[in-house]
């Protein structure tokens, strides 16, 4: 167990030491979105009855920031270790593959929650936001960060260069987060896109997370959590299998 704690501590220390880059900068970017979109759209859109657009936007942005940062944390840490070769420091000790997995995912969750909390608190300064079902909110936040932390591990394991890593981040993760209903409710989309959105697991994360705040959602939160939980479980099993096989780590 000491091994797991040490690795988690190291991972936390790693992003904490470069907090400017890992916490402050995503915080500022997300707040810029909030500033611009709420300014431009607030007068025109009301998604849920009785919920202002800015208030609607905040949970979406918080979740988006959490997802992106959870992914960034595990993926960048692992790819850096792989590229620089210092991954041997983790491969030589008797760390079990599930300990390795748990530490990376836990660190990703912490980073996601820290950034998400920052965005959420700063958002309160713009407009008050209700908190109808805090437990649902927490459940979806944890599930989202864990899922993206896991995706980050898989991507970094697979990638042979920073370039491949960035490709996945920019062409898969980023569009999926943007197109999952951060800025709109999918009910406002044409039927085709609405149907397609239901195949995007990130949609359920944002929708469920929003339910935690407003008690209103496009999909029932139980179903959402079931879908998200299944995705996370499948990804975890895949990652554990990759780690156990030594895929690209113990060539």
């Amino acid at each position, binding site marked *: 167990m000491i091994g797991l704690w*040490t*690795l988690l501590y190291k991972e936390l*220390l790693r992003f904490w030491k470069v907090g400017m880059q890992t916490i402050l900068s995503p915080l500022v970017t997300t707040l810029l979105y909030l500033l611009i979109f709420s300014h431009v759209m607030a007068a025109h859109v009301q998604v849920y009855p009785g919920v202002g657009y800015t208030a609607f936007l905040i949970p979406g942005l918080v979740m988006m920031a959490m997802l992106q940062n959870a992914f960034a944390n595990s993926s960048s840490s692992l790819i850096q270790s792989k590229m620089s070769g210092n991954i041997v420091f983790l491969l030589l000790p008797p760390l079990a593959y599930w300990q390795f997995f748990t530490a990376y995912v836990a660190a990703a969750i912490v980073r996601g929650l820290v950034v998400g909390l920052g965005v959420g608190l700063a958002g309160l300064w713009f407009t008050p936001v209700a908190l109808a079902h805090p437990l649902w909110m927490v459940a979806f936040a944890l599930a989202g960060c864990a899922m993206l932390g896991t995706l980050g591990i898989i991507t970094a394991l697979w990638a042979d260069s920073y370039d491949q890593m960035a490709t996945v981040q920019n062409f898969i993760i980023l569009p999926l987060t943007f197109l999952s209903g951060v800025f709109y409710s999918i009910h406002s989309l044409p039927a085709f896109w609405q149907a397609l959105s239901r195949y995007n697991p990130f949609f359920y994360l944002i929708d469920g997370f929003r339910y935690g705040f407003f008690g209103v959602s496009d999909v029932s939160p139980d179903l959402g959590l079931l879908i998200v939980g299944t995705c996370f479980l499948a990804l975890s099993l895949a990652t554990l299998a990759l780690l156990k096989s030594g895929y690209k780590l113990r060539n």
Partner: protein
Amino acid sequence: MTPAIEISEVHKRFGNLHALRGVDLTVAQGEFFALLGPNGAGKTTLINILAGLSRATQGSSRVMGHDVVDDYRNARRALGVVPQELVYDAFFSVREMLRFQSGYFGLCKNDAWIDELLHNLGLTDKADTPTRLLSGGMKRRVLIAQALVHKPPVIVLDEPTAGVDVALRQNLWGFIRRLNRDGHTIVLTTHYLEEAETLCSRIAMLKQGQVIALDTTHNLLSAHAAIQVRLKLDPNRLPDALRPLLVAEEAGCFRLVLEDYSRLEKVLATLREANVSVDELEVSKPDLEEVFLQIMGKEVAR
């Protein structure tokens, strides 16, 4: 007693490249063992398999009796490896790295031993320096310290002295020798053969993925104990009878190679008969470097 290291019938292929071709090797506990071979012979590949950094295509290995695949946790606990590549983690200081490494091995209060390691490796005043700011030789020393945090019974050093200055090299070997006297098994690779000759009691020579020589240092040296004689002659002419012994002619001197000392008498007699007198005579015993070249060369010819 369980051997410290047991490697049996290990093959490793990288695509078409057959990097290890059936290596068998046993190192007993307490040995000071050298693994020698030219660049690309497969030394690092073999060490990686032992350390679990890479998997053998075929064959099995054990560290202190623990299979490196099936019982990897115990095998790794028993092993400390100094990798050949100079790797470091840019985020952390020397002490942080050593604390983390201890933690990964399940040790939490290890500061006394870490301080001793830092002291022995001349790193005490660099303890709080970020590793990225260290010189190459110092990074190498940190790697050595990292390999020793958990006091492994078996220590494998892949070219530990590459890029380390002379004074520290002496210190380092003093320290490793002490570990060996305390019962640790040491395996090292090096291209400085005089190091291997003075330190190691047994040597394996690897070439193109095969062990082509495996013996005690003493036996290797005496089996190839051809002695070399450098002669300055007057007149400067080598009798034909001695031509077959000639290996080199340099600056008016002849270099002959003799199987053993008893042949020296014959050479001198032949010279006397030919009315050639000896101006200078110098006899040298072969060192490991020559033995190494002979063994590697013989294999080429075959």
